[in-house]
């Protein structure tokens, strides 16, 4: 086998390499074009808009105006940005731990051999198929201030910023629980039967068994979920727009997408870079904190 391979490699090597490069260009071209135009070019533009105020007046010829690095610092330190960051942070803290815990409970409950268990598994995973928009509309039946069923529950009122974040969190917890359920259930089912068995024979109780055997085995899945759910929460938008009649709670994405036209392009560009930075920072932090506790096995 080796000799065939070597001969083939030496004889046709350079011609083949040349041909393959052309083919690779053809195969990768579409992907790279899309990423260049809609992932990297916008990153460049965000930096540019942060430093220059674009001249949008088509009647007056003129270059974009340099506004300098102070535009970045001023906007990141502004009340608008810090308030939005605070809303997103609270939303993240309310939705991720609760959603994770709820989803893990669902998975543990549904990870057993019972007649009809498939039906329960389908019900628990159903929130994965509902879009954020549908989930938000669904929860207006409960949360709407005038005629939702929970209209008198003061701490879930959509009319005040603090309670509005809690109310919107309910929707996200519901959805996060479904995604967590799907992934944790798959992870639980991948734990080898022998390991569960051995732990049981060692006389571990159910609870201790779960924390000292099962959790380490599914830790890669939990790590993945922690990162994905945090990033999703930091970038939430639809729930805030659809559920709130008056937008009292405005997360980062609300300031970036800016449906009310409240900020300039240069301000929103800085906010976008802020979100970019926060997302990277939080993900790195999670990797560092959690990586040591993750058991990847071999």
């Amino acid at each position: 086998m080796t000799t065939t391979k070597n001969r083939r490699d030496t004889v046709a090597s350079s011609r083949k390499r040349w041909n393959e490069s052309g083919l690779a260009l053809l195969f990768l071209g579409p992907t790279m074009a899309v990423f260049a135009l809609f992932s990297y070019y916008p990153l460049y533009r965000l930096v540019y808009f942060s430093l220059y105020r674009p001249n949008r007046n088509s009647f007056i010829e003129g270059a974009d105006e340099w506004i300098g690095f102070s535009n970045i610092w001023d906007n990141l330190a502004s009340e608008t940005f810090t308030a939005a960051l605070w809303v997103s942070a609270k939303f993240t803290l309310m939705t991720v731990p609760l959603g994770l815990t709820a989803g893990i409970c669902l998975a543990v409950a549904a990870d057993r051999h019972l007649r009809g268990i498939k039906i329960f598994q389908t019900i628990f995973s159903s929130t994965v198929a509902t879009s954020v928009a549908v989930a938000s509309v669904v929860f207006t039946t409960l949360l709407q201030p005038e005629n939702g069923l929970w209209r008198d529950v003061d701490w879930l009122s959509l009319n005040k910023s603090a309670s509005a974040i809690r109310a919107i969190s309910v929707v996200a917890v519901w959805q996060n629980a479904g995604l967590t359920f799907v992934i944790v259930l798959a992870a639980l089912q991948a734990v080898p039967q022998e390991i569960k068995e051995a732990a049981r024979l060692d006389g571990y109780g159910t609870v201790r068994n779960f924390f000292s055997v099962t959790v380490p085995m599914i830790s890669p899945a939990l790590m993945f979920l922690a990162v994905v759910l945090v990033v999703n929460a930091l970038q939430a938008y639809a729930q805030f727009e659809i559920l709130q009649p008056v937008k009292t709670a405005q997360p980062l994405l609300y300031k970036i997408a800016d449906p009310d036209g409240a900020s300039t392009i240069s301000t929103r560009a800085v906010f976008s870079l802020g979100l970019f930075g926060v997302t990277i920072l939080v993900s790195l932090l999670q990797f560092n904190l959690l990586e040591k506790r993750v058991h990847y096995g071999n």
Partner: protein
Amino acid sequence: MGTDRHSEQPRGIKAVGWYSVLITLSAIILFPIYTTIVRSISSAIPYINSLKDGSGLVPVAVDYGVFGRVLQNDRFVNAMLLSAAISLIIVTGQVLTSTLAAYAFVFLEFPFKKLAFAVLVGTLLLPIEVTIMANIETIRDIAWLNSIQGLTVPFLASAFGIFLIRQAFLGIPSELRDAADLEGYSHLRFLFRVAVPISKPIIGSFVLISFLGAWNQYLWPRFAADKESLQTIQVALRNLGKSEITDLNFGYAAALLSAVPLLIILIAFQRQLVRGLTAGAVKG
């Protein structure tokens, strides 16, 4: 619990206990769906009036006709068709570009391969939420606001899809590649006759995930189009049935009906969907 490893199926009192736990949890998960069904089949004004002295948990002045009215509503039908068309374009595009790119990374030798891969990984840090503001400016510049291109082209490549399909291609035994070489297969022939058919299950999972993402997305279509005729169903849901108070149940019925295609997919392709969702999260 028995010591025999096959006696895991709980029996008697234990089974009853687990069933009550599972039924309670199902009731909690389904509760908001139930209230949405109640709201959609209850006529709007009688329902709101009933809230004063009722629980709101039972349908009032039941009117199943609402579903028919939703299905005959131009705006709903148009939005559903638009979502279907956009999802179809995005899924087809992503599967094509991802398959070709994955093939290049696995089976082709070319300069700057590592760099190209790094470019790919980098896009994971640049989701549409981060880039939306600049991307909206870009499509405004090229007059793609309110257009099918504007709604689809930014999503015609997927790093996730490339990673997933690349993983499948890496699993193809090298003997197969060598055999194909000896047979004189060209790359294109190997791709479509061997690599793609072998990877069908993974590609199938990716089709589902890709469709789920395309159908459910909200942020981009919300801002890339403001014309009513170019609103996807997710965006249209926000305003459907908001114009008339007597139509309040209309919006709920529309939300439920818009989720039906996904529910069917979830039930029909549960295994494949789970495989796609868990890719990367669960080893093995």
